[in-house]
C-alpha cells in the first residue's frame, strides 16, 4: 500500500522551528511503522533521525507519537494506522533532532524513586521466598521497558514537567508492593511530595499508551491508596 507519511522534523543547529516533511512510501500492510521509517531513511531521505535498537518491542527506544497516540514504531503495523500517517516525537521532552528527544530528565526521575530492591536484613541461606499472591501484587509493573510513552502521553506532565510522571511511579510501584523490599518509607517521601503521585488526574492516557499493556493508572491508584493507608 502507498502511505502518505508526515514526519515532524527539527534540527536545532540549522532550523529555527520544527516543520513537517511528507513522504510517499510503498509498504506492505503487515510492515511495522518502524520498517516504513527505515524505508524512508534508507531510500528516500538519509537525514531523517530516530532511535531504534531491538526492533522487537523490548528495548523501549522507539516510542513516538503516531497519529496523535504514543506507540512503539516497532510494535504497530502499518495497516492498523492507515495510509495517512503523522509521526511526531514524544511530547514534553526537548527535541534533540527529528524524533529523538532528550530522555535525561526522564531517567533522573526514574532514579529518584530508587528503582532497586532495598533490604538490609542479612540475606537468608536460601532465597527470600515469595508466594504467588505476593508476586501477583507487583507482577504487572515488572514489565516496564522505560520507553516513556506513558509519561509523555500525560496531560499533567505536558503542563508541568516537574511531575515525576507515570513511568517513575510504575517503577516505584514495582518495589513498594514487593514483599521483600524494605524502603517503602524512603520512596514515599518522593512519591508523596508535591510533584509526586498526587499530580495524577486519572486521565488514563498512560494506560492507553503503554506498549507493554501495563495498567499504569491502576498502579498509580494502588500507590495512592497505599500511601493513604500507611500514612493516615
Amino acid at each position: 500500500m502507498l502511505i502518505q507519511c508526515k514526519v515532524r522534523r527539527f534540527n536545532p543547529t540549522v532550523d529555527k522551528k520544527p516543520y513537517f516533511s511528507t513522504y510517499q512510501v510503498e509498504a506492505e500492510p503487515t510492515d511495522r511503522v518502524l520498517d516504513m521509517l527505515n524505508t524512508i531513511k534508507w531510500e528516500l531521505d538519509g537525514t531523517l533521525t530516530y532511535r531504534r535498537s531491538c526492533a522487537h518491542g523490548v528495548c523501549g527506544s522507539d516510542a513516538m507519537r503516531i497519529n496523535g497516540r504514543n506507540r512503539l514504531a516497532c510494535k504497530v503495523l502499518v495497516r492498523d494506522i492507515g495510509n495517512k500517517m503523522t509521526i511526531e516525537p514524544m511530547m514534553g521532552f526537548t527535541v534533540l533532532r527529528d524524533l529523538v528527544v532528550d530522555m535525561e530528565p526522564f531517567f533522573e526521575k526514574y532514579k529518584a524513586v530508587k528503582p532497586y530492591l532495598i533490604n538490609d536484613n542479612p540475606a537468608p541461606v536460601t532465597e527470600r521466598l515469595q508466594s504467588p499472591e505476593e508476586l501477583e501484587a507487583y507482577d504487572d509493573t515488572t514489565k516496564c521497558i522505560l520507553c516513556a510513552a506513558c509519561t509523555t502521553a500525560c496531560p499533567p506532565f505536558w503542563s508541568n514537567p516537574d511531575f515525576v510522571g507515570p513511568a517513575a511511579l510504575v517503577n516505584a510501584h514495582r518495589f513498594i508492593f514487593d514483599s521483600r523490599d524494605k524502603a517503602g518509607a524512603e520512596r514515599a517521601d518522593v512519591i508523596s511530595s508535591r510533584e509526586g503521585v498526587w499530580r495524577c488526574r486519572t486521565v488514563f492516557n498512560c494506560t492507553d499508551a503503554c506498549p507493554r499493556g501495563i495498567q499504569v493508572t491502576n498502579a498509580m491508584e494502588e500507590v495512592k491508596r497505599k500511601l493513604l493507608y500507611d500514612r493516615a
Partner: protein
Amino acid sequence: MSLAERAIQRRPGTNFELWSWYYFRISGVLLLFLALGHVYIMHIATPIEQVDYAFVAARYARPFWRTYDLVLLLLAMSHGVNGMRLIIHDYVRPRGWRVFAHSVLYSAALIFTVLGALVILTFQPVET
C-alpha cells in the same frame, strides 16, 4: 543531588498533598448529596415564584437549615479552592503569575466565605 530530585524533595515528609487529595474525595461525595438536596429544595420541590424573602426567612428560623447552608458553603468553597489551587499548579508555571493567581484565588475565597458565613449566621428576619 539531581535537579529532579531537588524539585521532588523540596518538602520531604509532608503529607499535605495526601490530605488534600483525600479531602477532595470526601468533600466531593458529601457535596454530591448536599448540593443536589439544595437544588431539589430550591428549584424543584418549591415552585420558583414561592422562593422569596419570606421563604428564606422561614427556612432560616430553623437552625437545621442554617447549619445545612453553612456546611454547604464551607465544603463548596474549600473543595473549589482546592481544585483551583491544583489547576494553577498544573498550568500557571511562571513564578510571578503563580503568586498573582494564588493571591487572587485566596483573597476571593476569603471574601466569599466570610460574606456567606456572615449572612448565614447573623441573618435576622425583618417584618415585611
